[in-house]
């Protein structure tokens, strides 16, 4: 399973099976990231890619589980998903009634990536996700807009125990929906975000360590909305699941139209 993912990542040809309407095209961009690739470098370049317009739903994930029974909650290997994996479903291949259009949560990183692979895609990288998440309704970069920030923080302030609403919130600048205000989302490189569990070590250049790419520092300390995403991702191991953690898939280059 893992090796398939690696092959995909290394740039093997990808059959674009998804209909174009399901994904939004994101043009290549260079932007100021909260996680610079190296000390002294403020920006990062992201190649053009396509991203699911909404998070993956329970119904879509159920179809995947039925076609790939190894990912049923009663068959999955514990190293790939913890005890709570899909525990909120009615049974091993059926979501809770009424939740079909809600985003699937309680899925591990391994399960999310396996789903995306089955669609000929992969999870978006942090920087791809961050680029899209920076957008407001009308602008590509709304990060300095206090209303944008407050909307996100207000979602953080609500407890997670409520039933999740269906996907399909208001589209952002790219036509992507539910980036904020619905669920946390897995990213491809979540496991390389080794943020210290003690946030106050941020001043220490070793605080944020990427496997194999040296030490970098965290920028934009005032961007609490993004900091919390990173804190959450970094607290999760790839087999962990949570009630608020869902995902969407990306294709690393534009699908020819």
């Amino acid at each position, binding site marked *: 399973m893992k090796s398939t993912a690696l092959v995909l990542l290394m740039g093997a040809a990808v059959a674009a099976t998804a209909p174009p309407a399901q994904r939004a095209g994101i043009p290549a961009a260079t932007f100021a990231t909260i996680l610079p690739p190296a000390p002294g470098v403020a920006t990062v370049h992201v190649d053009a890619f396509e991203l699911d317009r909404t998070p993956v739903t329970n119904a879509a994930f159920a179809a995947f589980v039925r076609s790939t029974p190894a990912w049923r909650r009663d068959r999955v290997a514990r190293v790939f998903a*913890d005890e*709570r994996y899909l525990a909120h479903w009615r049974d091993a291949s059926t979501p809770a009634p009424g939740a079909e259009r809600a985003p699937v949560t309680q899925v591990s990183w391994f399960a999310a990536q396996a789903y995306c692979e089955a669609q000929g895609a992969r999870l978006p990288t942090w920087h791809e996700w961050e680029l899209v998440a920076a957008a407001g309704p009308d602008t590509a970069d709304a990060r300095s807009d*206090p209303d944008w*920030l*407050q909307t996100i*923080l*207000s979602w*953080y*302030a*609500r*407890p*997670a*125990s409520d039933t999740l609403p269906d996907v399909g919130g208001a589209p952002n600048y790219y036509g992507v929906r539910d980036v904020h205000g619905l669920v*946390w989302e897995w990213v491809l490189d979540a496991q390389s975000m080794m*943020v*210290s*569990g*003690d*946030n*106050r*070590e*941020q001043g220490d250049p070793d605080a944020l360590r990427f496997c194999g790419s040296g030490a970098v520092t965290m920028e934009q300390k*005032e961007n*609490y909305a993004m*900091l*919390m995403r*990173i*804190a*959450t991702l*970094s*607290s*999760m191991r790839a087999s*962990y*699941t*949570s*009630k*608020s953690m869902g995902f969407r898939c990306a294709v690393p280059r534009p699908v020819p139209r």
Partner: protein
Amino acid sequence: MKKWSVMVAAALLAAACSPQNPPATTVAADTGGSSKGDFGPPQGEPVEAVLTSPPHVPPPTNRHAPAKVIVNLEVKEVEREIAEGVKYTFWTFGGTVPGSFIRVRQGDTVEFHLKNHPDNKMPHNIDLHGVTGPGGGAASSFTPPGHQSQFTFKALNQGIYVYHCATAPVGMHVANGMYGLILVEPPEGLSPVDHEYYVMQGDFYTVGKYREKGAQPFDMQKAIDERPTYVLFNGAESSLTGPNALQAKTGERIRLFVGNGGPNLVSSFHVIGEIFDKVQPEGGTHPQENVQTTLIPAGGAAIVEFHTEVPGNYILVDHSIFRAFNKGALAMLAVTGDPRTEIYSGKQVDETYLGDKVASLAPVAAAAEAKSTGTLTKEQQVKAGEVLFKGTCSVCHQESGQGIPSVFPPLAKSDLLKKTPRRAIEIALNGLTGPVTVNGVTYTSVMPPMSQLNDDEVANILTYVLNSWGNDGGVITKEDVQKVRASTKRPEGAAH
């Protein structure tokens, strides 16, 4: 360094030169801190720590040897009222703000289990200020929702310590209520008291204004600007007032563990009407005595003790006083018991203060004395009545007795007064509401009953009125007033 030694030398010299001062009390031997806090490996079976919700404090450990203590603390994100009709989502250690109180003994080995409830949205961790080790446990306890972490520490330093969440963004986690206290008892324990209570201050930042109804989200900008909407004891405006007030009786010794979670403000902690007999400032070991207000830093705590003597309500405040009356930093200790008037009398005198308007109340005293000996003259009554009139009646009826046209009726040459002096007694005793016609003009103002005046005083005032400003003269006696008072029904609330 050099400056210091000079200052110390000067201080010593000054002490030596003033023989009337007793020699400075020798400073108690220090505790040795963490270097003397390890009493060896834990002994006996592990014990599960008793955790309590505020304002309650777990019982003393009553242990005389180091133990292994297991702490199970659960993080819960909960929505509840921060003020009447105002909802806020708190992030809590143990379901309350402040979090559960933890009590261990110096030298104990504490096995700490931090559980992040599956319904939570955020990862959390804990930094205990009573921990010796990097981060105070923070990195070792970083836990996503639906998981738990374990770490172990030895409590080397005695004292009262704050614990809090240290997950990004730390300020927001703390502002949402993620703090509490852990007490590390000295090896010999704390002295016995009648009550121990747990009070912790915190500042809160909502998008809406103070007491603006509805669900209020956290306001990051206000938090960064350090402009709190609420400053509260124990996480809600009503958490320690009314039926939730702390309780005690007179003659009891009270110990408060007072923490300050912040995230931003320091507290000037004060109990109105009490003096702290003993304070361990900032939770340190050596107490200060006879303290009025003690500073509690954000991320700090103090132990304060006092003895109750007089019954009544004692209000706990942050004496940065606008916080108390405009942001909610009020709590209450209700003390019951018999009055102790030799210590505190309650109100003994409530009377008009005239400033320099009247130099002396001597004529009033003279009249009272004369009345008691049966030698009271009309002149004495008039003099005493003038003083009392100026203190009580002239505000409305004016010193000239002319009243204020169409507002307050005149007493000078009043036809009403002339017709029936007895009516004047009734009005003075019982007040007058509704229209009254004086010298052809109708007045509708309200005169309250002069309940504060006794029969002597009413008699003197009216005698003064009858003999002033061209009125016809005459005398009203104490007995006249007594008769009227006995024969008329007085309105509700009129005293005497």
